[in-house]
């Protein structure tokens, strides 16, 4: 099981409970075996889909096949450490407004699994430390 989790807050809704991203062990194994494409492959797909959502044509949206295939055909980036894999996941699965914009306090943090409280009531009152 992964050593890490990512805790993050939604900048537009700081009153909401902190969210906890849990990695798949299968995905981590692939990342550490060097099977991932460059992160830009996913960003390109996300950008195209967001544009379709913004323009109200998402219900019939199809990715450009040449961009979509890069998930499988782009040169692999090489083996990652578990820590590097977690940083990759932040950029892949967490909205860019959380990690790409500078705020007056951190909006996400990679933490050890045992640091995440299992008690929901406690976690709901959580706020990211500086």
């Amino acid at each position, binding site marked *: 099981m992964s050593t890490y989790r990512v805790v993050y807050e939604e900048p537009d809704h700081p009153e909401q409970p902190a969210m*906890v991203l849990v*990695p798949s062990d299968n995905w981590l194994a692939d990342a550490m075996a060097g099977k991932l494409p460059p992160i830009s492959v996913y960003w390109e797909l996300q950008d195209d*889909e967001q544009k379709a959502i913004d323009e109200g044509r998402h219900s019939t*949206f*199809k990715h450009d*096949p040449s961009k979509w295939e890069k998930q499988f055909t782009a040169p692999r980036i090489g083996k990652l450490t578990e820590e590097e894999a977690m940083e990759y*996941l932040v950029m892949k*699965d967490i909205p860019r407004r959380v990690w790409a914009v500078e705020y007056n306090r951190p909006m996400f943090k990679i933490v050890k699994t045992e640091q995440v409280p299992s008690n929901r009531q406690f976690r709901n009152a959580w706020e990211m430390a500086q």
Partner: protein
Amino acid sequence: MSTLKVNNIEEATSGGGKIFLSRVWCNWKGTGTLTIRGDGNVSTVTDMGEGRYTVNYSNSFSSSSTYTAVSTAGANITDYASQDDTDDHNSFQGNKTTSNVPVFSVDHDDGTQDDAFNMDLICVGDE
């Protein structure tokens, strides 16, 4: 282990109908600290708050017209009558994209979002 690479699978008899395989599956525990028990083509599951999850796929679908099914179960359900306040949940999905789907678990009795012991997801699409 060997890998079989094909573009289409069709039935060998009875007219050769096309067979569609699941592209994404995931089972996770939503109560306490979220735990992914097993998955295929899933990079992460995010605990978004009580009874709210987002499943992110390792690789995206090629189009937005995918089939997604979610279900939820308690820890000790043996029949309908055995469900109680902590075990009976309904589940539904939010606005999905080609790379993720929000999933919700709701207490059957009072309609509030609530964590479930057993969450399941399966997605089918052309690519």
